[in-house]
């Protein structure tokens, strides 16, 4: 069995971030790292692979043949990686991203895709379901727990009232929530070993995917500054006013 773990490589969130004023795109010139939310997906994949004796292949789409975040996943224990990189992918929307990733998954021969629910820089949250639709596989989303029993994949999805238990037959796409597991630290031996693991670099032509982008960003505005709360001196009516306020926002 083969598990494809999606890894997005994003600018280091610890470094100052900026949007390009012309394209409205995130500036991606600095250091790139594995998206923290994907490290959960990789950990879930590795734990499952260790249990089933399966293999984890990392699938990533990134500008400039970037592999540093993918290397982290390899250092954690993934066996190999596919990185799709093409200048024509600059400004790719979620759907094009999903088409690229779905095509890459087909090349790996994976039976199961594990992805984070959303990326930390884009937050569209649509890619896992789009990939599933493109592949014609069931999508099991927002999994907090994941198990595979024979050809059945089963997840638990946290809801306000408890858990949804969802199952499907493989092949399938599962999106996992952050906090579902504790991502392991790559050991130094893992880091050194990742150097020699195979990373296949592909272009759009290699995949046979056309660079069609249907989405355009028309503008970007700063979020409205949060208004300061109301401050008043207690003149003996504070209790009444607080109760009235809570009543107004309907929390009582």
């Amino acid at each position, binding site marked *: 069995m083969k598990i494809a773990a999606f890894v997005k490589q994003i600018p280091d969130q610890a470094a100052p971030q900026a949007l390009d004023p012309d394209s409205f795109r995130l500036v991606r010139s600095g250091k790139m790292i594995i998206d923290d939310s994907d490290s959960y997906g990789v950990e879930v994949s590795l734990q499952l692979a260790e249990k089933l004796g399966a293999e984890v292949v990392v699938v990533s789409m990134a500008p400039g043949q970037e592999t*540093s975040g993918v290397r982290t996943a390899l250092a954690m224990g993934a066996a190999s990686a596919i990185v799709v990189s093409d200048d024509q992918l600059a400004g790719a929307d979620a759907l094009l991203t999903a088409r690229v990733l779905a095509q890459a998954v087909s090349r790996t021969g994976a039976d199961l895709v594990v992805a984070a629910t959303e990326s930390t820089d884009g937050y569209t949250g649509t890619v896992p379901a789009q990939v599933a639709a493109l592949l014609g596989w069931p999508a099991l989303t927002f999994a907090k727990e994941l198990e595979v029993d024979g050809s059945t994949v089963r997840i638990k999805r946290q809801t306000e009232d408890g858990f949804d238990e969802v199952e499907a037959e493989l092949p399938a796409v599962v999106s996992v929530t952050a906090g579902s597991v504790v991502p392991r630290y790559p050991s130094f*031996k893992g880091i*050194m070993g990742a150097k020699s693991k195979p990373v296949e670099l592909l272009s759009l032509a290699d995949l046979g995917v056309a660079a069609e982008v249907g989405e355009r960003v028309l503008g970007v505005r700063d979020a409205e500054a949060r208004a300061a709360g109301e401050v008043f001196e207690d003149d003996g009516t504070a209790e009444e006013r607080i109760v009235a306020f809570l009543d107004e926002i309907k929390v009582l």
Partner: protein
Amino acid sequence: MEGTVAGARRSLEELFALDQLLSSEELEIAAVVRRWVEEAVKPSVAEWFESGELPARELALELGKLGVMGMHLDGYGCAGLGAVAYGLACLELEAGDSGIRSLVSVQGSLAMKAIHAFGSEEQRQQWLPPMAAGEAIGCFGLTEPDFGSNPAGLRTVARRSGGDWILNGSKMWITNGHIADVAVVWARTEDGIKGFVVPAGTKGFVASPIHHKLSLRASATSELVFEDLRLPADATLPGGIGMRAPLTCLGEARFGIAFGALGAARDCLRTAIDYSTTRIQFDRPIGGFQLTQKKLAEMALEWGKGMLLAIHLGRTKERGQVLAEQVSAAKMNSTQTSLEIARECRAILGANGISLEYPVARHMVNLESVYTYEGTYEMHTLVLGRALTGLAAFT
């Protein structure tokens, strides 16, 4: 022009293009240690510092699992990495706290290095794998109450008794001392100074914590006392004879400090930069004032120069060409620079600077120790003076 957005902020590393000097594996190793420090050290370190208690056992096990312990040594479960990778790990650890880096320095550069370089094959087999795994903690006893900068005068003595050795004396300011499973102890014998491997719990060996410290409070610092401590003949380090042996180990630790201290400085500097952009006085962020910018710019310069020197020293060491004087120069520079940065950052944070809510004062008082241990600033000054003139100001 993605790279040249007007007014884009730059990180300290970007200002000096430091990443270009490092391999992807080195960057990855630094990132892993940084993440561990963020998750395992930073949330609790102020509390450890305030209470003066460190969960050293747990931390040692986690560090062992990562591969940090003795990471620059070869074989025996050690990761066998290069000097720069080791330096970067020290830097990231010290960005958490100098006490955590001290734990690792003493384990890897002093205790493990002594056994690795000067021990018998049996000693290596017995001690290095558990020490690399963080299951066993080591300490290194050279400094004595009356012999700091002048270790060659040490008074701890080992005399022969039949086939055994009897050890008497005391050691002071020993990091990891009372939590250690094994101590490497240097003592005077009739054949000169020798190193001994002393398991904790041996009768006549007492290790007590030193209290009332105002620095390195998140670190175990101890006094060791040996009273008619009997050791078998094979407790000596066969290769560890004369002052050259312990000084070799100290050179390794100093190298780690040349990087490590700059980690504490980086944490201070990042904190001060963040603070200066959010702290509003006179209706604007204090980072917008020229006085603050001058401070930040000058500190960044000193930090960057220190990093360039440290990385250059690391590459020189990796080629096997490093001179003791070069290590002295970098240790001097990094500790002095970092201490000054910490003090200046404290001033930028104003009253908040003295609080344990921020890391700055903690780093500042820690760096007072780092400035002094593994060769004081003054001794390294004399080492450089001797190198430049050929005249020794000390013997």
